[in-house]
């Protein structure tokens, strides 16, 4: 492992990871690589007929020329209901290959069995997200290579500038035809958009579509065009529908979280952002603040030009009511979201390509008025962490979190402490966002505005909201919870790095020694 040097957020990061040189973070918007974009190999029509079906995944992997050390990409639209990732690596293990770089757009608890392939060396390292038991495995330094954590937009960026070369892209698709035209809105495993798969479809040298719902050509709409697909494999089942779109996305009942959601809606109105576009996720607080904000929009007689999903029934209802003009959707969290995406022309599927692309001439995230997000930690400089727990263990992927920070008004909302652990800390364990990206922190016991946003402080003067300093929030948290011990980390042994949206290294995740 190479030496660690200090970057522009004051964090020690490696100059080389998994044998590849790295660019360190230089400040928001400071890094602008030049030259042509990366591209996949040139295919020729003569090699493809009208029927690309093969009998098995193994046969497809063989025909794709799988070798030791290759990189395999996959999307995560099936979330915890995925039935494709674990069999994929079981097959690769059977075939006897090793040292694979696995680059999924996200992983979920259902992927825990991958640990055996990490232990045996079939998987060299993961570039994407690591949580739960896989997060612990990586944090203990047991992964062969070093993990790389990227945002959804970062995965697209890395494929475009050549940092991430995907050799084989696997695209599990709820509906496909024999040419490989695929979508996510039809079939028993319907999941909504397939936008995350576009990275693999566009940039992988070889692309395999895996489906449990083969339909005659043409399969429309073709969110994934068959012209980008090498092979099609039909299998019995690619996902568990109840776990793909749980249908249990419900507004929180927790009075504390509802109070936070009310504060968010009031803050948005008083800051002058009511009637602007917004980003709403599926978290309990996110769903709730949208309801409170909608009440205020009705009372004020204003509409939002668009909202960014993950879509849910709640967002769809607002679209149908006319309170929002469009839903620009990255993923659907329930069946109402899937259905609306399929049937309502004002409900549009967007991909990381249009939403979050760093190497593009503008993107949708920049157009968003308000984004409300969570965090595992925020520090006194407003730097925020979403990937690791305060004890140093990897906990979540970055998802679209870093990308949506581009909104005009970025709000991080969470209870002041969770199960005794304070969220406001002296210094975040892992920096996932520089402080200048975070405008406001909203908790049930106080709201802190980033001093860089004096305009917000001016507008909120005289507000009935409990506006305090971030130091005051920290003091309150410590008073309630007591001071936690510092995490025990081996600060010379990186186990993963966190990338900023431009591909530079923002921070390092260090090894936590295993306790006996």
């Amino acid at each position: 492992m190479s030496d660690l040097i200090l970057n522009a957020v004051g964090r020690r990061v490696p100059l080389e990871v998994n044998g590849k040189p790295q660019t360190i973070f230089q400040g928001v918007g400071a890094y602008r690589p030049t030259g042509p974009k990366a591209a996949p190999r040139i295919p020729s029509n003569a090699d493809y007929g009208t029927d690309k079906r093969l009998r098995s995944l193994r046969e497809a992997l063989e025909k794709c020329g799988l070798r030791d050390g290759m990189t395999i990409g996959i999307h995560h639209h099936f979330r915890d209901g995925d039935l494709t990732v674990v069999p994929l690596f079981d097959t690769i293990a059977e075939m006897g290959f090793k040292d694979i770089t696995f680059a999924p757009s996200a992983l979920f608890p259902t992927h825990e069995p991958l640990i055996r392939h990490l232990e045996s060396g079939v998987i060299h390292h993961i570039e994407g997200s690591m949580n739960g038991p896989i997060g612990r495995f990586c944090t203990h330094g047991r992964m062969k290579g070093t993990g790389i954590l990227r945002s959804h937009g970062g995965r697209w960026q890395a494929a475009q500038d050549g940092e991430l070369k995907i050799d084989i892209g696997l695209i599990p698709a709820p509906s496909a035809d024999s040419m490989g035209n695929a979508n996510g809105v039809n079939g028993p495993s319907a999941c909504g958009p397939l936008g995350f798969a576009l990275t693999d479809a566009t940039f992988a040298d070889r692309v395999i579509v895996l489906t449990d719902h083969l339909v005659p050509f043409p399969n429309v709409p073709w969110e994934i065009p068959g012209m980008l697909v090498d092979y099609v494999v039909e299998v019995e089942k690619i996902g568990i529908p109840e776990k793909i779109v749980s249908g249990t996305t419900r507004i929180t009942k927790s009075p504390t979280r509802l109070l936070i959601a009310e504060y968010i809606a009031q803050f948005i109105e008083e800051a002058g952002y009511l009637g602007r576009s917004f980003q709403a996720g599926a978290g309990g607080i996110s769903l709730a603040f949208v309801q409170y904000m909608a009440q205020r929009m009705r009372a004020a007689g204003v509409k939002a030009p668009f909202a960014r999903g993950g879509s849910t029934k709640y967002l769809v209802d607002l679209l149908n009511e006319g309170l929002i003009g469009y839903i620009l959707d990255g993923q659907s969290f329930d069946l109402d979201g899937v259905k609306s995406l399929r049937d309502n022309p004002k409900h549009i599927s967007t991909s990381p390509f249009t939403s979050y692309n760093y190497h593009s001439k503008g993107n949708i995230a920049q157009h968003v008025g308000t984004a409300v997000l969570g965090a595992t930690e925020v520090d006194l400089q407003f730097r925020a962490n979403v990937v690791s727990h305060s004890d140093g263990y990897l906990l979540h992927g970055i998802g679209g979190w870093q990308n949506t920070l581009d909104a005009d008004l970025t709000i991080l909302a969470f209870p002041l402490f969770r199960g005794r652990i304070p969220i406001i800390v002296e210094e975040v364990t892992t920096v996932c966002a520089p402080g200048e990206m975070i405008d406001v922190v909203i908790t049930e016991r106080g709201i802190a505005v980033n001093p860089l946003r004096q305009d917000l402080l001016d507008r909120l003067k005289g507000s009935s909201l409990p506006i305090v300093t971030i130091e005051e929030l920290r003091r309150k948290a410590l008073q309630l919870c007591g001071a936690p011990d510092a995490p025990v980390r081996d600060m010379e042994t990186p186990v993963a790095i966190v990338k900023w949206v431009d591909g530079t290294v923002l921070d390092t995740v260090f090894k936590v020694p295993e306790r006996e």
Partner: protein
Amino acid sequence: MPVAVGRDAKEDILLHLEQVDAGANTVYLESSVQNLYGRHIRELLEDGLGDAKVEGVTVRAKDTGALDWVILARLEAGLRRLLPGFKTRLLPERAWEYRPQVPKDRWRRSRLYLPGNQPDLMVCAALFQPDGVILDLEDSVAPSEKDAARILVRNALLAVDFGPCERMVRVNQLPDGLYDLPDLLDTDGVDTILLPKAQRAEEVGQVAQFIKEYNTRWGSARRVWLMPILEDAMGILKSYEIAASCDEVCALTFGAEDFTRDIGAQRTKEGRESFTARCMLVMGARAAGVPPIDTVYSDVDDEAGLVASVKEAIALGFEGKGCIHPRQVRLIHDAFRPEEKEFQWAVKVKRAMEEAHARGQGVVAVGSKMIDPPVAARALKTLKMGEFYGMKEGGNHE
């Protein structure tokens, strides 16, 4: 015999205690916050055992993010169950230094019930700004957990910041409730005691006398108010006597659930079965010069129903409503807010009263209308309530 105490639930801790042979105490800890607070919690438990001067006690703890005052309460309750005659108190640090006497006639529009054996709700209760919080030792606590709840509530009174809320405790029905009192009074952190199923004026007077003597003995000048809850036919029939039993009674309130059972009726949404009783309670309380306060509205999801029920209560003469969920507080407060028209009329009445007084006239008139003294008194009350809500003469034109 090994004993268990506490709960395997969020922000709580479950302890198993066992007396083995004499010798060092042993603590085994499993915690959801092991890496960040494990060392601290272990020390807290070990020091607690040391302070308790016990030996040879093994504690097996399963923690889910309990705060210190909860952990100490559970340890003390566990030791009391394990060791007959154990009396040592394991007190947390006091979160407040001095609290002024709560006035007898303060606002009591809303009072939020908090189950006495459940710490997580206590910590956030003040955020919802009810006029009062009720730490409940009675119906929300299982009979087998009464001892643990009493200690938990005692520690909450010391360690939890309830902000400007009136701190109320509902003790158990008399005479058991008397045994709840010393732990509570010693904290100096309780403002008002709720007496459930009150039936007789004498027992209310006895509680007042007990508290007065107890507080005098340890040198506290604090007056602790009493709020009898009338929950059966006898209580209702004696409402005046109970309200007038002693100067400590600050309000009378009603318990619908037990009352309907007592008279052999079914509780309905419309509440016809308790209508007469509530009216009698209002009269009893008013005759004794204390405010009547209404029961809870138990359907948490029915917000419109709650608002209607508060409006009805106001119309009957009640001055407050109980809450079983924090979401109900704001709705209740909004329902108690005077109408703008009513407030502006009250402003005019007050002006007219001042002018009449300045002229040395006894007769008050607004325009061509004479204002009778009771009407004037009602106007002053409306004015006070409106000002409390920040209402201004001429309305808010911002």
